[in-house]
């Protein structure tokens, strides 16, 4: 028989072939996006009827990128997203780890009740509270440089503060802290360190992996925000990248510019992911352990 089912080389070849075909399915829209961003509109639309859609051929230029910057305040949108994402991630790491430290290491009246409430919020999807939260933030007070103001709509704070603390982040920290050796904490206390010192001198330096996990999960949520900024930010001054996309759909749509904009806001995240892919995948895997 010419075909030998036990042929190791052939079986290996088939395995890799299957893996590669599946990889193509996952990668082709992104390849299409990047290649299209260099093509003029008429060529871009014509190319979708053939495999030319996936290769940078024809009239290739950076014109769409210049066009995107002329059409919309792209730099501002990116800056807004970076600012909102960065601030939320940092504040979240601090505030959630502090709360988790208290739940994991300290004993205080009401702790179990408070912790149960925090855990119970895990089953409330954001989409079910978006509308009442919109009403709430439209009436909240704020004391800023101009004195007392009412209403948080059209600000950075409305995009940051509601997202700082969440049940999942606190839960991930608590799980991690409970796995740390308790003797270390006791030793610190015996030597007269305050709880604050135990937190930032002993526990935090040991918490690299969970900090990375919490930061990556928060980063993905915040950078990709859509529904919330869509309803609380009407002024372009405060718009993040995903909502800024709407700018390209007013009047005549220039698809090349849309592709350039999508490439601009997506590729940095992809590069970031490729560098840290182990940490990204580990962070998603750790959310699965809660079952």
């Amino acid at each position: 028989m010419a075909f030998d089912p036990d042929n190791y080389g052939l079986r290996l070849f088939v395995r890799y072939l299957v893996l590669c075909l599946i990889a193509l399915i996952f990668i082709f829209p992104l390849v299409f996006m990047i290649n299209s961003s260099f093509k003029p509109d008429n060529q871009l639309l014509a190319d979708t009827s053939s495999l030319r859609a996936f290769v940078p051929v024809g009239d290739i230029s950076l014109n769409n990128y210049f066009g995107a910057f002329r059409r919309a305040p792209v730099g501002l949108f990116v800056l807004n997203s970076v600012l909102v994402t960065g601030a939320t991630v940092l504040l979240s790491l601090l505030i959630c780890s502090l709360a988790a430290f208290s739940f994991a290491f300290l004993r205080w009246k009401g702790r179990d009740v408070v912790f149960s409430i925090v855990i119970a919020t895990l089953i409330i999807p954001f989409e079910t509270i978006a509308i009442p939260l919109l009403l709430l933030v439209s009436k909240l007070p704020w004391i800023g440089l101009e004195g007392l103001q009412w209403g948080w709509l059209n600000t950075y704070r409305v995009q940051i503060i509601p997202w700082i603390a969440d049940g999942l982040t606190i839960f991930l920290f608590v799980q991690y802290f409970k796995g740390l050796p308790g003797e270390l904490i006791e030793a610190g206390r015996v030597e007269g360190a305050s709880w604050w010192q135990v937190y930032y001198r002993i526990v935090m330096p040991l918490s690299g992996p969970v900090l990375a996990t919490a930061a990556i999960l928060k980063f993905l949520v915040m950078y990709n925000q859509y529904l919330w900024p869509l309803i609380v930010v009407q002024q372009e001054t405060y718009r993040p990248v995903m909502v800024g996309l709407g700018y390209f759909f007013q009047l005549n749509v220039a698809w090349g510019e849309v592709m350039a904009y999508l490439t601009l806001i997506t590729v940095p995240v992809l590069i970031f992911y490729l560098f840290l892919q182990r940490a990204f995948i580990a962070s998603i895997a750790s959310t699965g352990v809660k079952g």
Partner: protein
Amino acid sequence: MASKLTLSNRTGWTFALPGFALIFTFIVLPFFFAIGLSLTNQRLLSPNPTQFVGLENYRQLLDFAVVTLEPERNEAGEVVRDEAGEIQYPRLRAITRSDDHPQYRGMREWFRWQSGENVRVVIANDVVFMKALVNTFLFVLVVAPVQGGLALMLALLINQKLRGISVFRTIYFMPVVVSIVVVSLLWRFIYDGQNGLLNSILQGLSFGLFQPVDWLGEPSTALPAIMAMSIWQAVGFHMVIWLAGLQTISPTLYEAAAIEGASKWQTFRYVTWPGLRNTAVLVLVVITIQGFALFAQIDVMTNGGPRDSTQTLVFQAVERGYGKQDISGGSTISVILFAIVLAISLIQRWLTRER
């Protein structure tokens, strides 16, 4: 001794307070707000004072009835037929606008079916909401098993010991880090009816026999198209969760199976699958909850159309609560959505309970 070390009411509260206060204000409070608002006629901005309306909002959304249309008869009592022989029925308006049936006033047709000579019509107060409810359930019922199953197959593929396998894992996971908004826009090109990539590929594979379809423009294909895209985007996420589950299964079990001479299928059936039971429940529940939150895809791709075939609960909640500034209407849909999610979480608890 230990209690002296750890009993610390003031520090405990101080450390936990910022986080708890934020969660309380921005998650717990709005949640109870939603329930309260759903019992009123609150609007975002309104000159009139807000009134308590009880369960009226729920009745408005959920009220439906089945009515029967009997064939029109002439004076002799015979059924009237048109030239094509079709039985003639009175118009639905005769019921929904008649003073004889005040309870049906303002209701509109949802769907109908033939039952003998008669036609039964399901009329609902809010047909768009009913369609959104059905579409959302349909989405979850299809996406949860298909996405969960495909994710498990990918996880088993990726769990092989092959050189360079982590490259494939990285690629399969890639769509997860891309925003669903970006993904939805890209897939509009794939699904385009004129020269979309999908039509081009299908025509190429069938040597031109395939007739192009406007995937997002047809009521029958729009929701399935969005399902397929959503699965493509998120399947890598659940592949990773399955992988984590697979790695908790002890290698000694596999060795034992190999010694017993178990086939590949037997190994999967009796070693792998039992070890994945809790992961399976978690994956299904996470996909289900994400599925009920379906919004961005609809907003970017179809806006609920064509002919309401892609309306969803969250899309309706946002359209009413934000678009029409009808906070109470949007909140009512949110509460209904939460009740569904809660029920599913409780079922999960029950399925994974300690035995």
